[in-house]
């Protein structure tokens, strides 16, 4: 378990490499079902579900939604049959994305399976998407596909399954608000910082940079002009092709205010909000910290620093360059 407050560049790259590697394994056969399709398990399932459909037992076929049941692992053998998915989930756990909620389950039944057939599962890891900000916290969506094969080696059922692995916001969470799962077991315990930046498609490169310890400034991919705050169109040539450059991380106070009132959630007044002029040619608004407000003045030299505001959010802040 890492103590990292948010996804770093290494984490993200490592996860992607692992995900690509696991996906490249293709479909990996699992252990065949412990039992063939059988009447007692079907009867038990129908009884528990309250399903009075007589067709299954009359015809000697299993309810199609039982597909996965046949190859579930028992109490003692849980975790023994490893699939390409396990390594990805384990690495997400190790990186602090310990919460899990399933988000999608899609099953296709090619035919109903008959009593006596023994099914074999095969699992393919199909993708990792993220990091994404979700209602439960920052996380990755992991998707995999399982195909169940009959004894003639023909697919009888398929499933696409997707989970969100998320970094729980805090330890004593009252439970996932929007999910079906078992979150809240992770590290953490910091109160969430109440003010959060609005991350959009225009600005996500900037916040991704912050997580990676980079101060990114949007640039026009056609005329090269830098602009900040980020926007969809170049004000110089009107191109919508965007890129960014990584700023050196230094600047000077172009203007500033000392905020005394009204109270701001998560902040202790007085604090300094400055317009920082970068040598790259744009100005960025940010807080100046690590010095008393009265020490701040126009022209003061600053350098950027990245501070974890809670378990998830990192903000770029400015400190005197001498410090």
């Amino acid at each position: 378990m890492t103590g990292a407050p948010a996804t770093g560049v290494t984490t993200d790259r490592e996860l992607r490499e692992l995900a690509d590697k696991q996906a490249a394994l293709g479909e990996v056969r699992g252990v065949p079902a412990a039992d063939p399709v059988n009447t007692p398990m079907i009867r038990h399932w129908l009884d528990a579900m309250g399903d009075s459909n007589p067709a299954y037992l009359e015809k000697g076929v299993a309810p199609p939604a039982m597909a996965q049941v046949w190859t579930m692992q028992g109490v003692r053998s849980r975790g023994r049959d490893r699939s390409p998915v396990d390594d990805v989930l384990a690495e997400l756990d190790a990186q602090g994305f310990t919460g899990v909620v399933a988000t999608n389950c899609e099953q296709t039944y090619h035919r109903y399976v008959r009593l006596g057939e023994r099914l074999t599962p095969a699992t393919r890891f199909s993708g990792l998407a993220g990091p994404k900000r979700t209602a439960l916290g920052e996380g990755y969506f992991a998707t995999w596909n399982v195909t169940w094969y009959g004894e003639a080696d023909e697919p009888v059922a398929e499933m696409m399954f997707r989970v969100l692995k998320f970094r729980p916001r805090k330890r004593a969470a009252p439970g996932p608000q929007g999910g079906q799962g078992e979150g809240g077991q992770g590290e953490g315990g910091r109160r969430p910082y109440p003010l959060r930046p609005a991350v959009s498609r225009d600005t996500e490169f900037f916040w991704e940079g912050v997580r990676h310890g980079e101060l990114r400034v949007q640039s026009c991919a056609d005329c090269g002009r830098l602009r900040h705050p980020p926007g969809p169109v170049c004000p110089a040539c009107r191109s919508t092709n965007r890129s960014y450059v990584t700023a050196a991380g230094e600047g000077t106070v172009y203007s500033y205010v000392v905020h005394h009132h009204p109270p701001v959630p998560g902040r202790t007044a007085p604090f300094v909000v400055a317009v920082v002029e970068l040598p790259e040619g744009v100005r960025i608004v940010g807080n100046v910290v690590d010095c008393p407000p009265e020490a701040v003045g126009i022209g003061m030299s600053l350098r950027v620093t990245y501070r974890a505001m809670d378990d998830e959010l990192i903000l770029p802040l400015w400190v005197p360059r001498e410090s």
Partner: protein
Amino acid sequence: MRTLTEDQVEIGSVLPELSIDLTPTVVVSTALATMDFTPVHHDVEGARAQGSKDIFLNILTTMGLVERYVTDWTGPEAVIRRINVKLGVPAYAGDRLSFNGTIVAHDGAEFTAEVRGKVSLGDHATGTVTFTLPQ
């Protein structure tokens, strides 16, 4: 038990509501019948330790109940082809799970019902079930 035939179902046909009391017995018996021994589906203390307020339905059961909801209405001769479910809030023991559904597509021999399973916290499962009927 009779089964609806193709000419008895059309786009807009409404499935009658099915409401299920999620007693602890329902949650536990279905978890075990689906061979899912994850503690959050049978162990209250284990579920609470993970941050959940109680034990809750497992996904294999959700899929099973969605299937049952449609075949309860169609009758036994319907053939289920596909179940696509988007999972929402947990269905905790002590809650009530209510299904509603409507036929939204008819393509060749296949009918598709849009199904929604709600609990007190909101949508537990929403999705579609595609099936065929006797002619």
